[in-house]
């Protein structure tokens, strides 16, 4: 296990370095000089020169990369060019919205998908199965931002159960904040729940056909007992993979959904930064999200290796 862990850790650090290098280089190939790009066409040359030195653009490329990474390791993302405050402050203010939103959506997705997938698999080809499969087929075809707009139309505009957007802040209390995140989380969760329900169903169907399931039935367990005690645990491995992957989809999907609901999270920050050409903020949000994805993937890998020793050997 130790050797496996070390190997995975090495590959994790390589991925992080490679990802940071890619992001750094992409942001460096901004047509022309980043400083004049950020200042716009009619900028005063002196102001551009000042920004150049503020950004450290007069140093050679490798030095700039090392300086940037060294800063990142200390939580220093640089100073936002438009807000004139450390980017880490901007991010800290917004992560407390984006991360809970992602987790909320992940929880909803799992809560919807598990019962639906289990129901469909245990009553294969029944009306319930067909309904679940039809609904999931539709669920993956619906763009989440469109679904978000329809939710606003029904639950905010017509029924007035929720507000159409905005965020009261956690200081307004837990429930008002959760309420503001509910429609966005539902909109984010729908397509992911559809995918997850399908994976749950097919994984469970595969497991139900295994020999050990026949043994479980033969020793006198009812269908339901065998399903709960033996099939479900074994069917969960592929499902866990998908849940891990979904974290990254939800995190990225949040970028769009935050814009539908005017939630001041990382996504809104990124888009405002794009329109204001604040590349430092764009770069910081991107690297934060990519690092989150890489680390979650790593943790999911470790979770399996802990759960299933066969996987440790297979990969070596």
């Amino acid at each position, binding site marked *: 296990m130790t050797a496996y862990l070390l190997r995975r850790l090495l590959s994790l650090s390589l991925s992080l370095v490679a990802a940071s290098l890619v992001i750094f280089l992409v942001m460096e190939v901004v047509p022309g000089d980043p400083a004049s790009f950020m200042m716009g066409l009619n900028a005063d040359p002196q102001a551009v020169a000042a920004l150049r030195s503020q950004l450290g653009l007069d140093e050679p490329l490798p030095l700039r990369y090392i300086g940037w990474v060294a800063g990142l390791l200390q939580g220093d993302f640089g100073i936002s060019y438009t807000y004139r405050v450390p980017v880490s402050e901007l991010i800290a203010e917004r992560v407390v919205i984006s991360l809970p939103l992602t987790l909320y959506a992940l929880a909803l997705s799992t809560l919807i998908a598990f019962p639906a997938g289990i129901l469909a698999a245990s009553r294969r080809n029944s009306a319930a199965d067909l309904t679940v499969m039809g609904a999931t087929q539709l669920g993956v075809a619906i763009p989440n931002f469109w679904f978000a*707009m329809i939710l606003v139309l029904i639950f905010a505009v017509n029924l007035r159960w929720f507000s159409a957007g905005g965020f009261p802040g956690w200081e307004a209390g837990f429930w008002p904040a959760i309420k503001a995140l509910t429609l966005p989380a539902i909109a984010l969760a729908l397509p992911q729940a559809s995918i997850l329900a399908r994976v749950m169903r097919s994984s469970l169907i595969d497991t139900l056909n295994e020999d050990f399931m026949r043994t479980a039935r033969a020793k006198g367990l009812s269908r339901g007992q065998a399903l709960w005690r033996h099939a479900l645990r074994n069917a969960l491995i592929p499902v866990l993979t998908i849940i891990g992957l979904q974290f*990254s989809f939800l995190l990225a999907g949040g*970028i769009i959904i935050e814009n539908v609901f005017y939630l001041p999270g990382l996504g809104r920050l990124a888009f405002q930064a794009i329109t204001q050409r604040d590349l430092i903020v764009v770069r910081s949000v991107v690297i934060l999200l990519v690092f989150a994805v890489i680390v979650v993937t790593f943790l999911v890998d470790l979770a399996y290796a802990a759960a299933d020793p066969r996987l440790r050997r297979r990969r070596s």
Partner: protein
Amino acid sequence: MSTPPADRSFLRMALGHPAFVLGFLLSALFIALALVSFLWTPFDPTKMDIAGKLKGPSLEHWFGTDHFGRDMFSMIMVGARVSIAVAFVAVGIGMIVGVPLGLYAAARRGSLIDEIIMRGNDLVFAFPSLLLAIMITAVFGPGAVNAIIAIGIFNVPVFARLARGAALSLWTRDFVLAARVAGKSRARISAEHILPNIANLLIVQGTIQFSLAILAEAALAYVGLGAQPPLPSWGRMLADAQTLISLAPHMALFPGFAIIVTVLGLNLMGDGLRDLFDPKLRRGR
């Protein structure tokens, strides 16, 4: 004209697969709308008519009019053209770059190049597709071409992985061994023996990726990073509809339905093709 028996039986099987037929018809409907839009639309999709703005569906304007009085049906027809073109080219890029990479990696299994290609794939996968697109458009500016590049880059590792995985199992098969004994190069074997045998798999995945690309294009256009005005696009029509949703819900409903029906059609067609190409894989969908 006589069809070869194999084709006829495939056609008969296809026609007996309701999900495939439905998917094919839905996808064909939107491809037809896109093609017809080059020759004819009920109205000029860019022509404004402020007096007739925000009208609901009527016999004259089938899907109503938008906040500038433009005909929504005409805009959806032209929007179909943009969505389908962007998705088609993006998936094409993914295939053209990804498949040779995957085939190469499989042919040189375990080599340094294989390792580099696969780790490169992992790296691209670590970037959520949307984030990649946002980064690219942040740097190069918004527009249909940059949307294509962004979605295309994300498709490369999908096809590279699929091609490599499928090719690896073929490399151990007798007919490939025979070709190697006959002295064919790895590149020729990949092109002549491996590629035709994984083509079905690639077509199925291509259909699924096509539908994902349409969703991605719509999302990019919705946040203003896709095709730019005056070119209508489904995503931007939805963005325009958002602030007017209580006043004119039809502005949000119809472009949304267009996306859903197209994506649903492509997905059903993809699932159907998978069943048809490989009856063994039928899993009671």
